[in-house]
């Protein structure tokens, strides 16, 4: 019975993931696309929970669903209505056909490889303890085995923050493009 319930939750989350991803790609208005991405992130957080990644699921909702998406929606609202008349890319039609073929090739490769080679291997996960994926376990790993990744991540975030400030301040000066050249 519990197994059946897990399957139901998984199917719901996977369906939500796929539908919202397709909605992100196909909506004309970027505002609706960003709202659909919030649904995508939330259903991915459910899948992370099923894989016993509690801390990552919470981080997904907080960082992505909260911070990043608020920033996206704010920028889209700031730029105003950017609904497109022809949202799909221009160029000759063979370019579009090539893009669809390339996307399908990734999909087909992964599915063929999974079904041919790794079927048995993938259906026997290692047993885990109750503390798997808890904040305490992840924090211990971050400060012991993966200390370098932790520090590098903080530098990346710092550089990104500086970059955001620089880009924003340049744009503020540049309301008249000739003025920027005169000043710099």
């Amino acid at each position, binding site marked *: 019975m519990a*197994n059946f319930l897990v*399957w139901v939750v*998984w199917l719901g989350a996977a369906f939500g993931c*796929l539908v919202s*991803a397709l909605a*992100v*790609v196909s909506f004309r208005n*970027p505002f609706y696309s960003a709202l659909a991405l919030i649904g995508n*992130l939330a259903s*991915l957080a459910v*899948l992370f929970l099923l*894989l016993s*990644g509690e801390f*990552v699921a919470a*981080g*997904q909702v907080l960082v*992505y669903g909260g*911070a*990043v998406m608020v920033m*996206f929606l704010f*920028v889209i609202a*700031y730029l105003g209505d*950017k609904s497109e008349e022809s*949202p*799909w*890319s*221009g*160029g000759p039609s063979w370019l579009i056909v090539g*893009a669809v073929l*390339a996307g399908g090739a*990734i*999909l087909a490769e*992964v*599915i063929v490889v999974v079904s041919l080679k*790794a079927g048995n291997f*993938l*259906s026997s*996960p*290692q047993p*885990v303890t109750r503390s798997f*994926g808890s904040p305490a376990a*992840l924090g211990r*790993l*971050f400060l012991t085995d*993966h200390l370098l*990744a932790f520090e590098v991540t903080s530098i*990346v*975030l710092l*550089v*990104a*923050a500086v*970059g*955001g400030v620089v*880009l924003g301040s*340049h*744009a*503020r000066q*540049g*309301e008249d*493009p000739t003025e920027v050249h005169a000043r710099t």
Partner: protein
Amino acid sequence: MRGPDIQWYVILSAILFSVGALGVMLRRSPLIILLSVEIMLNSANLLLIAFSRLHGREDGQIFAISVMAVAASEVVVGLGMIVAMGRRNVELDVDKLRTLRG
């Protein structure tokens, strides 16, 4: 482990990745392209966490958290550039952006 095997997560992640890749390749608006890149990064995250569960080690989750930090940085820089474009009244269309010169 109850519920579906890891291979179903792998297949779902492949589908999500190709949907995101199609969005990057087929759309004009840089905003939608950024959103599609987020979908691709998240499908990679799903795969990392699925394999972390398969092997019973948390290293994949550590990697996933690092990927989230990188994605947040990427969004900051990308949105900064889009806002700069919007303030200069450049049309938001990647087909028409051919030079980087301000």
